[in-house]
Each structure stands twice: as structure tokens, then as C-alpha cells.
């Protein structure tokens, strides 16, 4: 069985030159960094906050914070990983504001056997893209990921959607590598379980669109 090949875009060689120029006060160099990563930051913010307005605010505040704190970026990691760390913190802060009644933390690590034990073991056929329109598919995927605990969907979006390595994800989230792996496994299995309800092979045709 084939394995997942991450779509990791290596940063262009000129990235550090842009960072250096921005550090020296060249605002247009910073604008190029915004242009390079604004889509990624928005995607991450929306995955975590599950709120469009909050995601817009996160994009603005994360880039502004990055600009103001460029001098503290010591270039031990990629600029993008450093930016992601800022964006995740901003997104989690907004999530906490909206849900003060609920603990929202990256340390959130709900450990139960059942959440990882697959119950749905029917294969998916035909391909979900053939079953649903693009719009319907997005709605299903959005609803499904919304149901995951914030700490799980944060790890999932960084690793599997954005293609950060396990080490980069651990670095951006201040988590250990085993903690990233454990959350990622459970995020993947829980999403799979929930999506199976929509995508499983329905030989009887019941409920099929």
C-alpha cells in the first residue's frame, strides 16, 4: 500500500535575504513574506478557530507581531515555522475568548481507548469526489474537522494540510515529538471514523446521495 508523500514546499533560497532586509526596515521585503504565507496562515487560523472573522484577525495580528518581533527571530528555524508558532498562539487565544467555559490548550490530550479504536471498517467506494459535489464535500470536511478537539485539529492542519514535518510541528507548538505523533494518530483516526459515515461503500444504497 502506498504511503503519504507530503507536499512540502521548500522555502525559496531568497527567503533569508527577505528576512534580513525586513529586519533592516525594508517594508516591501516584509510584504513579500506576507504574500508568500498569508494563505497558509489564514488556512491554519480558520482550521483552529473555526470562525472566519477570527481567522481574518489572526492573519493581521500574526503578521504584525512577526514584523514587530523580527529582531527576536534568531533564524534557528525556518521563518515559516516561526510565523506558524505566532499564528497558532493568536488563534488559540481567540478560541479561548470565544469559549471561556472550555479549556482550550495544546496540552489537551484526551486519552481514551475508544477514540482511537476503529469501529467503521467498510472501505470507501466509489471515490468521495464521485459521490459529492465540491461544495458538498467541503461542507462535510468542515463539519467533520470542527468536531475534533482544538489540539488535535491544530496538529492535523500543520502536519497533514500544511505539510510541516513532525519536528517542525513539535517546534511550532512547543510539544514533544511523541506528543505530536500521538495527537496526529488520534486526529487522523477520528476524522477517518467520522468521514466513513459519509463515504463508506453502501452496497444496499441506503442513504446514498
Amino acid at each position, binding site marked *: 500500500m502506498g504511503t503519504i508523500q507530503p507536499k512540502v514546499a521548500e522555502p525559496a533560497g531568497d527567503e533569508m535575504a527577505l528576512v534580513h532586509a525586513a529586519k533592516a526596515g525594508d517594508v516591501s521585503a516584509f510584504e513579500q513574506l506576507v504574500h508568500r504565507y498569508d494563505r497558509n496562515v489564514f488556512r491554519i487560523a480558520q482550521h483552529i478557530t473555526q470562525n472566519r472573522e477570527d481567522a481574518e484577525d489572526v*492573519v493581521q495580528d500574526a503578521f504584525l507581531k512577526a514584523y514587530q518581533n523580527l529582531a527576536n527571530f534568531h533564524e534557528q528555524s525556518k521563518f515559516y515555522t516561526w510565523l506558524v508558532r505566532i499564528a497558532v498562539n493568536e488563534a488559540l487565544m481567540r478560541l479561548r475568548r470565544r469559549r471561556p467555559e472550555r479549556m482550550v490548550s495544546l496540552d489537551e490530550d484526551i486519552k481514551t481507548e475508544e477514540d482511537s479504536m476503529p469501529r467503521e471498517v467498510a472501505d470507501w467506494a466509489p471515490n468521495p469526489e464521485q459521490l459529492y459535489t465540491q461544495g458538498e464535500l467541503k461542507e462535510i470536511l468542515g463539519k467533520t474537522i470542527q468536531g475534533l478537539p482544538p489540539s488535535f485539529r491544530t496538529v492535523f492542519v500543520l502536519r497533514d494540510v500544511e505539510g510541516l514535518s513532525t519536528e517542525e510541528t513539535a517546534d511550532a507548538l512547543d510539544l514533544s515529538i511523541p506528543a505530536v505523533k500521538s495527537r496526529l494518530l488520534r486526529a487522523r483516526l477520528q476524522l477517518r471514523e467520522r468521514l466513513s459515515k459519509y463515504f463508506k461503500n453502501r452496497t444496499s444504497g441506503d442513504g446514498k446521495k
Partner: protein
Amino acid sequence: MTCSDFLKELTDYLDESMDAQTRAELEDHLQWCHNCYVVCNTTKMTIEIYRDSHLYELPDELRGRLRSAIMSKCKGHEGPCT
């Protein structure tokens, strides 16, 4: 290898971050365990479908508006703190 052992290794298997011997043991398990084969296959599809879904794309109009707001705030600021 039990199904539970297989599940524990699933993430490393899909990410190809394991030694050849463990990989061979997992693939041997997949040969005869239909349930683990399905779980492995549909987990892989789950990852691919999210990765390729373009969920939460930033629309061009909003992108332009956000960029203007960011840059005007940056220009209004003294510059990176040193």
C-alpha cells in the same frame, strides 16, 4: 503483530518514518488482516482528501484587503524592534 500493535504504528507507517523490519512486519499484517487494510487505506484517503480539498482558501478580494491592512499597520509602526 496484533491489530492494536498495527494501529500504534499507523502514523509512522503512512509517514514512512520507520525501519525496514517494522515496515515488513506491518505489511505482512496487512496481507491477511482486512480490517487493518481498510483502516490504513481510508486513513490515507482521509489525509489526501483534506490536503487536496482547498478547504478555507483565502479569497482574492479578502486577501487584498488583509494585506493592505497589515502593511498599513507595519508602515505605521516604527519598524522591527531592535
